[in-house]
């Protein structure tokens, strides 16, 4: 082992500090603008000189019907949760088959999933726009859930296959030898072992849906189904004379902070999920 000198510590401290600053600055900056009162918006200061919560109040004023933000927030949460649930159920079936059963076409499914992960979503926007209008799916929750499902499944399948391959499936039989029914063996042994992987895949799929912008602005036209990223792009100020900067920043903070807290709590899982299958194990 090399000697660790104080110079080493100093150099590593600088490196770590740089990474932390790099990651945090935009977030702190958004919080800063969201707290600035309108007259201080143009002060060009990174740290606000006075703090006001007016931007947050105006987001929620008027309740669901009048607030520009509450309905998109409900849409974002609802659409992401429904997609995540369906995606994880379908992907779990598929990943179980790929990880545990032997059948022709297994590699084809994995290759197809990979191809879809690389597919440019813009290429499907035009046809979907046309089809959704004919099928009355345009500007509905289902109209967004369907494409999100398609594009999140490859991610979910890959993460779940990587996790399911690590599960010691023999334990299921061992439990049955010990007198457990097949159902007990599955629920008491396999489900607890699979849960962390399923949960990880769910987080990644949720973040994927939460982040989408292209489908959200192309396939919606009103607050009936517009999600937060799309609503932010069409935000207008309180009156036509005020820029929506403060409101956008406040809304951005509201949708960002919970996700960051969540990501930080489950960081080990997320890192494992993001890199699952990246290296042959």
């Amino acid at each position: 082992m090399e000697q660790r000198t104080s110079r080493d510590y100093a150099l590593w401290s600088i490196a770590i500090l740089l990474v932390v600053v790099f990651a945090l600055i935009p977030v702190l900056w958004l919080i800063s603008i969201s707290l600035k009162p309108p007259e201080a918006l143009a002060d060009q200061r990174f740290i606000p000189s006075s703090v006001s919560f007016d931007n947050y109040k105006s987001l929620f004023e008027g309740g669901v019907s009048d607030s520009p933000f509450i309905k998109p927030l409900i849409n974002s949460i609802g659409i992401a949760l429904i997609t995540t649930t369906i995606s994880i159920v379908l992907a779990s079936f598929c990943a179980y088959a790929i990880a545990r059963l032997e059948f022709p076409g297994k590699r084809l499914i994995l290759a197809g999933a990979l191809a879809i992960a690389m597919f440019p979503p813009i290429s499907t926007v035009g046809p979907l726009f046309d089809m959704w209008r004919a099928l009355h799916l345009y500007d509905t929750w289902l109209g967004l859930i369907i494409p999100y499902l398609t594009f999140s499944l490859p991610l979910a399948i890959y993460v779940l296959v990587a996790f399911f391959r690590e599960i010691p499936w023999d334990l299921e039989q061992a439990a049955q030898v010990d007198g457990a029914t097949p159902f007990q063996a599955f629920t008491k042994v396999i489900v607890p072992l699979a849960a962390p992987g399923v949960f990880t895949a769910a987080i990644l799929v949720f973040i994927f849906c939460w982040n989408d912008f292209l489908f959200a602005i192309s396939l919606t036209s009103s607050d009936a189904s517009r999600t937060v990223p799309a609503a932010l792009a069409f935000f207008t100020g309180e009156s036509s004379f005020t820029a929506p900067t403060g409101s956008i920043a406040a809304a951005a903070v509201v949708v960002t902070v919970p996700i960051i807290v969540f990501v930080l709590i489950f960081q080990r899982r997320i890192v494992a999920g993001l890199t699952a299958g990246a290296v042959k194990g």
Partner: protein
Amino acid sequence: MEAKTGAPGKNSSRTRSERKLAWMLCAPAVVAMLLVTAYPIAYAVVLSLQNVDLRFPDENSFAGLSNYTTVLTSSLWWTDIFNTVFLMVTTVAIELVLGMAIALVMHRAIFGRGVVRTSVLIPYGIITVVAAFAWQFAFAPETGFVNNLPLISDNMDWFGGRFSSFAVIIMAEVWKTTPFMALLLLAGLVTIDDQLYEAARVDGATAWQRFTRITLPLMKPAILVALLFRTLDAFRVFDTIFIMTRGALDTESVSILGYNQLISRLNLGLGSAVSVLIFLCVFLIAFVFVRGFGAKLDEGRPGG
């Protein structure tokens, strides 16, 4: 336990039922994946061969390849291709260097690895549109703090020119996606046997030599896969440009062009031709990576 394929005798009926079960389990996911990819791309090809403008619904007619010739002979398409490729190459190159540096810090730091990993995940959790707004507000001459920094002119109008807009777009994209690159590279980094470094050190190799002679060659597969996924992702750049410039001042990417034709101008025929061409570009990039550089896709994974 894995069953053997094509096992003879009493196993064959079991194998057959296993196949059937496997297909039943996979079918819903496969159908859901094809529903919004295979069918729409086929439909896009059909649309691209017609004159379909939703503003003039009665004037639909067969167009042959005229939509394609219109796109391919327009200077807008080639400007947008240049913009997209320029942004793609610069972002991915910066990300590779930065991502590698962060991966090395996460792997080798003598303390504080947890802090680095924690902070690196923050950009990953943030909506791309939100990140784009954060950087836009930071650089906007009226509200931003950037022009207040030393060495930067107080009146610099970042969004007043093409390449200064690109600089901000690249910064936002790099910030948002470097963590993913760093984590993929870290996953490759941890598989390298530490003894190789020890041996090289005994033989007197410098830190730089150890990096270029051991780390880089052994990480080639991981690097190629990370590059492939990030390159394809960067080629699709849309959110950041839409928020920052809406494609003004010649900063449009091909995805923005497609969106403008399809959704803003409702010209489904011309827009679909753009969509199909983008699809072919993505296919070409993937082909170059797999055939040209030998990226092994079965070691890869879909991007987050």
